[in-house]
Each structure stands twice: as C-alpha cells, then as structure tokens.
C-alpha cells in the first residue's frame, strides 16, 4: 500500500506521489490533505505527479476534487510533473482536469503558487 508523504515547506504543503496509487490510497490522500490544510492553515498545495505512469478517469476526477476541496479551505493547488504520455492520454480520455492549475515541474509550480498567493494578498486565511 502506498503511503504518500505530505511535507510542509515554507507554509506550503508539498505532496509527491512516487508510485501507482490504489483507489483507496488516493481517497486517503484526499482526506489527509484536507486534514493537514485544516491543521496548518497552509494556503498552497504543490502536487507532484512526476512519478505517476497512469492517470485514469478515477484518479483524474479525484485530483480535480482534491483541488476543489483545498480551494474551499482557502488553499490553491498546483499539479506539476504530468508526464507527456499521461497528458496525451488524459486529453483523449476526455479529462482535461478543468479548474486545476498546472505547471511543467516543481520549480515552475512553486513560482506559480507564489504568484497566486501574492495576487490574493492578505485576503486568504492565514
């Protein structure tokens, strides 16, 4: 069973998925992440999928729900590291992950998160 670490760095939550997720692992990640958002008051989530080879309709939908749930708790989510083959497959599958912010890699994702948080100014929950 996959354990997905959630690490707090400089007020952001960084999630790195390093192996294929069973459905229950993905659902547990969703719960743990929202729990951590409540406890830390973090306003940004970086979700790194560079280690994921397959994103099917279940995981794709859950990623959208994770981002939406985080948003309801005052946090922005940026998904990074989607492999080229996964990107093509997701589009053909009909899942464009609408409403999810994405970036090519972790570095660009971090700057995107900073930009989103800066644009929000002091109005977020901290």
């Amino acid at each position, binding site marked *: 069973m996959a354990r997905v670490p959630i690490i707090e760095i400089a007020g952001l939550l960084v999630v790195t998925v390093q192996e*294929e997720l*069973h*459905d*229950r692992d993905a659902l547990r990640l969703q719960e743990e992440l929202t729990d951590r958002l409540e406890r830390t008051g973090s306003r940004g989530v970086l979700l790194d999928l560079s280690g994921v*080879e*397959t*994103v*099917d*309709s*279940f995981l794709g*939908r859950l990623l959208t729900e994770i981002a939406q749930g985080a948003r309801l708790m005052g946090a922005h989510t940026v998904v990074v590291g989607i*492999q*080229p*083959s*996964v990107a*093509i*497959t997701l589009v*053909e*599958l*009909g*899942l464009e992950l609408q409403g999810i912010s994405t970036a090519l890699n972790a570095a660009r994702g971090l700057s995107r998160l900073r930009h989103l948080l800066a644009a929000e100014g002091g109005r977020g929950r901290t």
Partner: protein
Amino acid sequence: MGAHETSDSMLPIAGEDDIINARQFARETARRLGFGAVDQSRIATAVSELARNVVRYAIDSHGIVVIRGLNDAERGTGVEIVVSDEGPGIANVEQALGDGFSSGRGMGMGLPGTRRLMDEMQIDSAPGRGTTVIIRKWRR
C-alpha cells in the same frame, strides 16, 4: 480477424488491487511488443478503466483479463485485451458508450474514453449475462 496470436496471458480480477496489476501487466506486454510510451499509457489506462468496471459492477468484483499479442499480415503487430465478467451486464450498450452516461459512481467516461484510447473496441453484454469487452491497439 485473420490475426495470428503470438502469446496469451490471463490475469484474474478479484478486487481493487488487481486494477493496478492488470494495467501494469498490460503496459509491460505493450512495451515488450514494441509500443511507444504514449501507446503504453493509452493501453494501461484503457485496461484500468475496464478492470475498474469489473471491480465496481461484477459479482464479487470477479472477472478475467486476457492479454495477447497479435500478428496480422496487414496491420502488423498489435495487442488484444479481453476483459470479461459475470456481472449484471449492460442493458443498453449504445447508451453506455455515450459520453456522460454512468450507472454508478464513475464519471460516465470509462467506456467512451476507453474507445477513444484504443483502435478497436467490441462489447458483448446483456442483462444477467455478464459483460465481455475486447479492445485492440495496433503498433504504428
């Protein structure tokens, strides 16, 4: 079909863990047959969708995945995957193939999405008779 079958492997599905087993097995077979990274992803994702249907809808989540390499005089090398179960079956296959149709917790994207990822898809199903889905992809 006229295709010569080059290999034949069977994988039982008995629960959620087998979704990943089935798709990784399909990916490895595709890689061995010379499919590129994008096609490997398409094939693994299609199998993931079909295996999840079995886990969600079949009786006791039980079904069988058969994966075989194909060698056709005209189309060259391909892969065929047959996913079958003895579940409740699909009453209206045409409807199930339409985007947005879902009878359960899915997004209604499983079957139409799977068809878009593959070159060929056939569904044999009727209420009470279970479901057999055959998908094929040919190497370009």
